[in-house]
């Protein structure tokens, strides 16, 4: 720390020296020739210089020996001009907006394509514009290689899970670190950011790029850069409006229709209650009293009579009843521009999305302001602040009919939504979801913000010192009201104190204090050195509360003070802190050779004092062969070979994971009590990650053809795992460092302008992304197999993470229609045993390949683009499908039409087993419903028209763009029944709720949508 300040002091002291000889001139924009006011003109290697006046003119006395002028202006590319004895120099500068394509945002700075040595994917903000999703992470799907994105589910505003280069951890976090304008975010902020405000996103995929983020870099880093103002530009005002609809994605199977289901039940000898009642009404004498008698009577009827009774039952389309065509709209106003030394961007946005079921909505209002001000040439200060308010009306996330998306697959078509007397029909499930949506309301509001205040000085042209305080906070408040008199309240509430209300929430504040120093030196225009040093302190404070009371006099009052008695009053709190030192050195020669090394040391409060410090490093090199004379290529071409290696860590393991803990948050007889709550492990240490990657980047024919091929190997050591232990210890699990995981892969990207005729404004572009990732557990504690999630997966050396582990289904016995499985030796058995589980080779929940194909055709002002996403190689335990094909176990509930095809007589093959009414078949978990998850999905199709400028002149508009787009409008899945984009199961789904893609389980369905919109710029 002390040394660091000494160095800075020394560097500052170097800056101030004195000198003599006169020079004058002007500084102008290279395109429109407007004079640039306030540009800094300095003799190179000194601080002597001047700032241009209102006419862009400068004049000052040159120090002795000065040969070069350095001209700089925010928003423009720095320029060096040789003096060559002249006394008047006119300089033109190029706006850096024009060269932005080449600038790549990297950790704690920027770089250019020819100089990067690590794997960094950049995504232009344009690709994220007006995509109708509430959460920006969803929009990254298919945008680049090595980044697998799956929507958690289709709830409006719901986030996605992102895996950068495979699953690198099991128990510790698997999500990348998000950094917005230099501030590492804590937690789930994605739905709070308006994606239209994003200028670009960089994804740091390998050690060389991500190890500068040390203990948080191992899952990759997503750097989000927001839009900034342009100095010296007229204000540009833009208004954007979009509206459209969303619907449930159609599923590729049918449920039994009313008559099929009734016939099915009849054949099974099951008589449902509505039918029993109808028989009693149709045949009043002699009086039928029992279900069995009704069934007996029913069996004596002729086909016609039977149909008549069947037809008297209602025929409800539950899909139509419980889902809706949801509206979506967003409007936005933004303005950007700047004066001589000031730049600003400001936006206001309102995003409204209804859910596809009543009771589900998402609304976000957000504002972003981004300003930079340079009062003097060597000093800049700035601020980016984003504030959002997101409101959600939520449905209960349950794995039963308290969720409409389970009810949809559970209620029978012969059951009406309401009874003849107008009461809600409780159905065979004893619960009316339609009533619950009205009477058990749940909503939440999240207020969030990200703000970064910084100051930056350039004591000399090559040195930049930056100090910033960033903060991100989130305030979440949820209310859940079980209205008095609601059906659920009657089931779970207190009859003497009806109604119950829950208020819970949390507040998280994360602040980051960061000081960096950056030294860039170019020697003879050939050698370039970049040095970076920094100190950073991060602290996170979290507090939560939950209040619940019961006994509400009327459903019109909802605050806790109206409850007759408190039920729950609880709060929680935790902190973590991180102190880091970081440094990076890069050297490049002629944009031909580049080498880079970085180092970071993190101290984390989450580990015991012995293992608190972690040091992470990286090295990398690149060689742009295109610049070699023997290649004879044009200057713009790039053919770069690069290789890098390094380490990073993963600290997402909870806050106090290593301690043996005794909890006091329990009570007995309402008196204080204590009990062990955590089995500690003092040896617990960092989960480390070592990876290397190598690749070739190319860009030929004036960038008409560009892309890359890359190989990577990413290895996680000292894997932290919630290891099952013998339950005789009194615990089920303990955290241990038990093994290693490896992800190896290939990434390919090709982008080609198939047709490019600038004179006719005609362009046809095609692009292909492909990622292959092979995931493997390479070492496990003592070489043992460890049970994975939900009893259906296992971890074993040499197999992918969470390889499925189940008994093998051997089909229906053609002789008697019974179930058959294979035992561990491969013999057919007819009795189910979980002990017959085997590792199902090659079947695991993570996709092994994914990518997208996109094409854009532009002609004059028209454009049409399509984005086709594909993913596969994964398997999904399709529990929705098994519930709908239960072989009679769930015969009382809705079943798939396929379930009709069951064993009826000896010799039947390719059929489901003979149904057993209300049997135990649902416990016979096997690979029968383990389905291949390969799919293709037309993620987005956009048709747009840009009205010609000449038509707008009279309207004083700069541009008008109208467009129409469709999301998820077509899906193809060969083997999978249902929507193959499986994220998390419903909240009560056990394994399915914790690891994405492992099991489908009645989660909020994915949606397809159509929207249209207009962008007007003044």
């Amino acid at each position, binding site marked *: *720390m002390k040394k660091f*300040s000494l160095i*800075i002091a020394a560097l500052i002291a170097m*800056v101030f020296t004195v000198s003599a000889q006169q020079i004058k001139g002007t500084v102008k924009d290279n395109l429109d020739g407007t004079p640039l006011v306030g540009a800094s003109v300095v003799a190179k290697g000194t601080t002597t210089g001047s700032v241009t006046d209102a006419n862009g003119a400068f004049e000052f006395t040159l120090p002795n020996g000065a040969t070069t002028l350095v001209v700089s202006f925010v928003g423009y590319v720095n320029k060096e001009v040789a003096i060559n004895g002249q006394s008047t120099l006119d300089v033109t500068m190029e706006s850096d907006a024009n060269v932005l394509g080449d600038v790549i945002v990297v950790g704690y700075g920027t770089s250019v394509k020819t100089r990067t040595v690590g794997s960094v994917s950049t995504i232009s903000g344009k690709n994220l514009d007006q995509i109708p999703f509430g959460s920006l992470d969803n929009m990254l799907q298919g945008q680049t290689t090595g980044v697998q994105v799956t929507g958690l589910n289709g709830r409006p505003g719901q986030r996605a899970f992102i895996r950068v280069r495979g699953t690198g951890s099991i128990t510790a976090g698997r999500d990348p670190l998000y950094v917005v304008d230099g501030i590492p975010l804590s937690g789930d902020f994605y739905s709070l950011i308006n994606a239209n405000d994003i200028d670009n996103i960089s994804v740091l995929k390998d050690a060389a790029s991500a190890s500068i983020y040390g203990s948080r870099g191992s899952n990759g880093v997503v750097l989000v850069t927001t839009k900034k103002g342009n100095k010296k530009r007229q204000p540009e005002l833009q208004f954007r409006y979009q509206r459209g609809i969303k619907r449930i994605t159609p599923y590729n199977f049918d449920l039994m229709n009313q008559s099929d289901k009734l016939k099915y039940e009849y054949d099974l000898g099951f008589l449902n*209650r509505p039918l029993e009642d109808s028989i009693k009404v149709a045949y009043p004498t002699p009086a039928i009293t*029992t*279900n*069995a008698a009704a069934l007996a009577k029913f069996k004596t009827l002729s086909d016609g009579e039977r149909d008549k009774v069947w037809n008297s039952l209602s025929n409800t389309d539950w899909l139509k009843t419980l889902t809706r065509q949801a509206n979506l709209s967003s409007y936005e106003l933004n303005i950007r521009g700047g004066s001589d030394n000031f730049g600003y961007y400001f936006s206001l946005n309102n995003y409204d999305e209804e859910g596809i079921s009543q009771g589900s909505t998402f609304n976000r209002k957000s504002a972003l302001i981004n300003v930079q001000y340079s009062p*003097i040439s*060597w*000093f800049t200060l700035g601020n980016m602040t984003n504030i959002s308010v997101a409101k959600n009306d939520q449905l209960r996330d349950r794995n039963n009919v308290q969720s409409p998306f389970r009810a949809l697959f559970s209620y029978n078509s012969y059951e009406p939504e309401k009874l003849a007397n107008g009461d809600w029909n409780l159905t065979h499930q*004893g619960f009316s979801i339609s009533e619950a949506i009205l009477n058990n309301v749940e909503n939440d509001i999240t207020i969030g913000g990200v703000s970064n205040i910084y*100051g930056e*000085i350039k004591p000399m042209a090559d040195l930049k*010192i930056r100090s910033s305080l960033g903060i991100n906070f989130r305030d979440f408040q949820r209310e859940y009201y079980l209205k008095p008199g609601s*059906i659920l309240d*009657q089931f*779970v*509430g*207190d009859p003497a104190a009806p109604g119950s209300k829950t208020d819970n929430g949390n507040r998280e504040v994360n602040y980051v*204090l960061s000081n960096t120093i950056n030294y860039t030196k170019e020697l003879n225009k050939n050698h370039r050195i970049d040095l970076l040093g920094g100190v950073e302190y991060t602290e996170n404070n979290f507090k939560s509360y939950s209040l619940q009371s019961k006994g509400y006099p009327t459903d019109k009052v909802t605050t806790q003070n109206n409850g007759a*008695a408190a*039920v729950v009053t609880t709060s929680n*709190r*935790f902190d*973590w*802190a*991180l*102190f880091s030192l970081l440094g990076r050195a890069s050297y490049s020669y002629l944009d031909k050779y580049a080498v880079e090394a970085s180092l970071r040391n993190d101290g984390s409060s989450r580990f015991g*004092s012995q293992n608190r410090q972690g040091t992470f490093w990286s090295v990398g090199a690149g060689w742009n062969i295109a610049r070699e004379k023997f290649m004879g290529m044009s200057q713009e071409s790039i053919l770069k070979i690069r290789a890098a290696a390094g380490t990073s860590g993963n600290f997402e393991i909870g806050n106090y994971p290593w*301690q*043996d*803990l*005794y*909890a006091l*948050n*329990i*009570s*007995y007889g*309402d008196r204080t*009590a*204590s*009990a*062990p*709550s955590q089995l500690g492990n003092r040896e617990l240490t960092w989960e480390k990650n070592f990876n290397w990657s190598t690749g070739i980047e190319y860009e030929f024919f004036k960038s008409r053809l560009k892309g890359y091929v890359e190989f990577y190997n990413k290895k996680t050591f000292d894997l932290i795992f919630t290891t*099952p*232990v013998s*339950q*005789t*210890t*009194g*615990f*089920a699990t303990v955290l241990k460092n038990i093994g290693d995981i490896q992800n190896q892969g290939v990434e390919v990207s090709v982008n080609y302008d198939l047709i490019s005729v600038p004179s006719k404004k005609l362009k046809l572009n095609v692009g292909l992304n492909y990622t292959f990732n092979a995931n493997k557990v390479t070492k496990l504690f003592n070489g043992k197999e460890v*049970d994975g999630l939900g*009893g259906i997966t296992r971890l074993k050396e040499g197999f992918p993470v969470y390889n499925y582990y189940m008994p093998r289904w051997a089909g229906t016995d053609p002789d008697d229609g019974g179930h058959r499985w294979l035992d561990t030796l491969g013999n057919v058995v007819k009795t189910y*045993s*979980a*002990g017959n589980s085997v590792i199902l080779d090659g079947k695991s929940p993570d996709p092994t390949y994914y990518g997208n194909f996109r094409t854009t055709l532009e002609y004059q002002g028209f454009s049409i683009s399509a984005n086709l996403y594909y993913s596969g190689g994964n398997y999904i335990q399709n529990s929705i499908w098994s519930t709908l094909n239960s072989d009679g176990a769930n015969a009382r509930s809705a079943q798939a039409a396929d379930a009709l095809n069951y064993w009826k007589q000896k010799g039947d093959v390719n059929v489901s087993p003979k149904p057993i*009414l*209300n049997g135990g078949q649902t416990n016979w978990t096997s690979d029968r419903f383990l389905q291949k998850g390969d799919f293709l999905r037309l993620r987005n199709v956009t048709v747009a028209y840009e009205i010609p400028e000449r038509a707008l002149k009279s309207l004083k508009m700069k541009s008008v763009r109208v467009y129409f787009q469709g999301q998820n409008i077509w899906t193809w899945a060969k083997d999978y029944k249902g929507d193959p984009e499986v994220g998390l199961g419903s909240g009560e789904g056990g394994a399915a709720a914790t690891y994405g893609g492992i099991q489908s389980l009645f989660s909020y369905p994915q949606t397809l949508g159509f929207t249209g919109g207009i962008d007007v710029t003044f």
Partner: protein
Amino acid sequence: MKKLAISFFIVSLLSLNSCGDKLELNPYNALETTQAFETGSDFTNAIRGTYAGMVLGNASYYGGDYILTPDVLADNVLSCGAGRLTGLTYHNWIYTANATTSIFNEGYRLIRRTNAILENLDRFVKNTEGTIPNTLFRNTTELNAFANNVKGEALAIRALAHFDMVRYFGKGFSSAADSDLGVPYVTSTDATALPARETVKATYDKILVDFVEAEKFIAVSNGVGRLNKVAVQGLLSRAYLYRGEWQNCIDASTRCLTASASVGTIANFPNVWKDASNDGVLFKVTITEKDNVSVGVNYSQTSTAGTRSEFVVDYDLYQKYKTEDVRKGAYFVTTAFSGTTYNHISKNFGRATGRANVVDVKVIRNAEVLLNRAEAYARIGGKDTEALADANNLRKNRYTGYVNGTESGSTLLNAILLERRLELAFEGHRFFDLKRLGLGVSRSNFGDKSDGTGANNIAKTLDAGSFKFQLPLPQQEINTNSNVKQNPNY
């Protein structure tokens, strides 16, 4: 410029200067284990924490399954067609190692809590002796009395948890061969021990040792919500009955009943199930409104639409309750749900006020101890008079206008066993009693409706020797503890 630049950096560097020390952070809501056993009240909290462990968590031990599963496994109940069809895994005996009772996990969680107390107790006594007199203890007598009670309570809970588990996972004491396996008997908090299963006999022996020790040390009164000397004596009587040691059973029962005689009067009996009376209750697990553990919810839920039962009483058993039997009204209610009338089990409907289905779980009552003794007398030979006296004592407190019975021999024994079934139904005994007696499960052909008609799609019989009488251990235990063997046939 110079000044500005320098001050800019002094400010920004100062702000970072002291950050390195801020990494020493501890939780706000928990203690490190070493801090948890320092004072007397720490031990009282830890003891209460063991009882809390019976209830909380996922409520599948005394908070629910204890009073449900042994009845669902046996012939006392019938799955109700109007219910959600829960519990069929047990009811139809289709459990596997991946879908078995979580009592293994819950039991050892409880045992771990008792062992932590026992391991820290001596250190506490030694450390506290030097500080006497202090605010809690005026002299060593008080300290020792406190420590003895803690020890007795911890030992009794440890024995009880092992007892509950061996009833599920092991064969009956009498029918088990010497090599048949019970459960691991855990007496330390060593997390690396990987204990093997004891034999059934050895498990029962160790249970007995702990109960006997506990009786010596435990205090006479800790309140009905905690174990006391009489409750331990009652549990000892149960343990001896399961072992078939009739005289020991008679002695332990007598010690218990001498200190606490009432089996609950006819007037008080219905109130016991509403927690309005503790007449005849030796120990019950307290469940408060705040705990909100709905122990009865696995039997039924009640709304304005009526009571929706998961399980109704088997009609054959229902008919055995006579009109003048106070238990008939206390245990059942016959009402309609969705147009069909059922005999619902109302024993766990909850208190007169408060949340539905929230009620204390009765673990041992005088009536059971009396029945234990009556059975022991009837089996030991030559003690029919005493057996009859005990049986009559219970019956006169259950049947209005009861005239003393005069049975003897096997008629008397059968009458005692019938009374046992009637008295302890839906309290977690039936399956274990059948196993103890070497009987199979044989269910009636009646349906789920109040008149015995209606649906009845369940499995009917489980033969006495079936392996299904011993539930499978969780697969996780087999996978993580190489010393533990699975029960045969799973």
